[in-house]
């Protein structure tokens, strides 16, 4: 399933490492990464493919949310279709 991981919050070291480490450990392939820093606010968006993962989608989303709490960031995993639907005709 094509999905989007978004990470946002105050910038700090090791964010990409932690999130990509989690995705690697759960067989989620990262297809694209972009990031921006506005002031001290960090926002990272990853396009990922979850089809190889043995975990179900809800469990992955919960896992990332928990990881987000550990590193003090907001981390979300969402089906890519929601963004396609809202922003493309």
């Amino acid at each position, binding site marked *: 399933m094509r999905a*989007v991981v*978004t990470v*946002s919050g105050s910038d700090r070291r090791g964010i990409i490492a932690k999130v990509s480490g989690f995705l690697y450990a759960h067989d989620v392939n990262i297809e694209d990464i*972009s990031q*921006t820093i506005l002031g001290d606010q960090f*926002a990272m*968006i990853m396009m990922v493919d979850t089809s190889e993962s043995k975990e179900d*989608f*809800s469990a992955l*989303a919960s896992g990332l949310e928990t990881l987000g709490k550990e590193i003090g960031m*907001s981390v*979300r*995993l*969402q*089906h890519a*279709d*929601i*963004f*396609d*639907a*809202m*922003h*493309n005709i």
Partner: protein
Amino acid sequence: MFNQSDVLETIDMIEKEHLDIRTVTMGISLLPCIRATAKETAQAVYDRVTGRAERLVKTASELSREYGIPIVNKRVSVTPVSLVTAAFPEKSPLVGQALDRAARELGIDFLGGYSALVHKGTADYEEVFIKTIPEVLAATERLCSSVNVGSSKSGINMDAVRQMGEIVLKTAALTAENDGLGCAKLVVFCNAVEDNPFMAGAFHGVGEADTVINVGVSGPGVVQHALKFIPEADLTDAAELIKRTAFKITRAGQLIAKEAAKRLNARFGIVDLSLAPTPARGDSVAHILEELGLEVVGCHGTTAALAMLNDAVKKGGVMASSRVGGLSGAFIPVSEDIGMIESASAGKISIEKLEAMTCVCSVGLDMIAIPGDTPASTISAIIADEAAIGMVNNKTTAVRVIPAPGKKVGDEVSFGGLLGRAPVMPVHTGDAGKFIRRGGLIPAPIHSFKN
């Protein structure tokens, strides 16, 4: 393909501006449940509703998780119960209680359809059924009721209007210890729609497929937030921005509706494009109108601003969804909108102004507390006025007023949760009793004869 700012915009809408799917409502036909006795029918109704909607709550929470968008309410609407119990109308409460139990079993907050459609005339079994509404609403927790008393095609059934004034008052009396809460679950319609996903007026029309998923989207906060960025724009540009925003909101609803229907093995019915407020700050239709430049909702200019908002929402939404229905527009319930509550509490909005607003938006006089000693004939007259607006303008109108027992103008009623709180508003004290007692049918307007 979407870009980074699209992703961040969606997340901001959800996290900061209260974008949500307001309701995923499963419409279920009860016609196959009719049996020889009320007891057997009630059991068949319970079995069918709990069977068809068994996975509704679970599926909605999975969808919410996967797409990262809150789905606030999961609900069920059913065939108007008066049709199911036509052979034993006095025993209709048995079916009402079975539906309430089913709602509890499913874990949903409201189930709609304890309803009757009497817009052209009231059958004997319907008159008996309507008399059961107050006791059923008092004895149940999650069941919602509605009665359609008029339509553009048929006119207004003034005998039913007269009866409903009494029914509203009796419902308030039987739920007096909760400020007349029963009336918050009772809607009197003109031009009721058969695929409305919103409570308390939802029912599953007889022209509908067996099991249908209808979705109501929301997002007044998103529209208000978007308007903040163009404080000096003219109204053409403001309407355009509202339209674009409504498009995005509705597309989210369309996606969830189609996916929910697929997973629940039901037909995709409609997306209802309504801006539905909640009592939470930042989730108010009144505040959109104020963002457009009104000092306070209710002042002169409110009707024009609402007309523009309602139209822009429809235009954006129609483009975004393959099937649009329900009420589709802006809701203006007083107790469920923080901006309305504040304006009403300060005496800045009147029932007369609200009535004018209902001429241009998608609903009617909604969630308005009125003095407990309001006569039944005055409530009937309020219903008749709203029905006339709906009939002549080919739109749905509704009345959901709460004559708060023992309360006077200036007091407040509080229902909590999504139903909110409302100050008791004054009604005109002139007597319409004779007009209401005349009964009969107000004929349909000339422009309804289109065949």
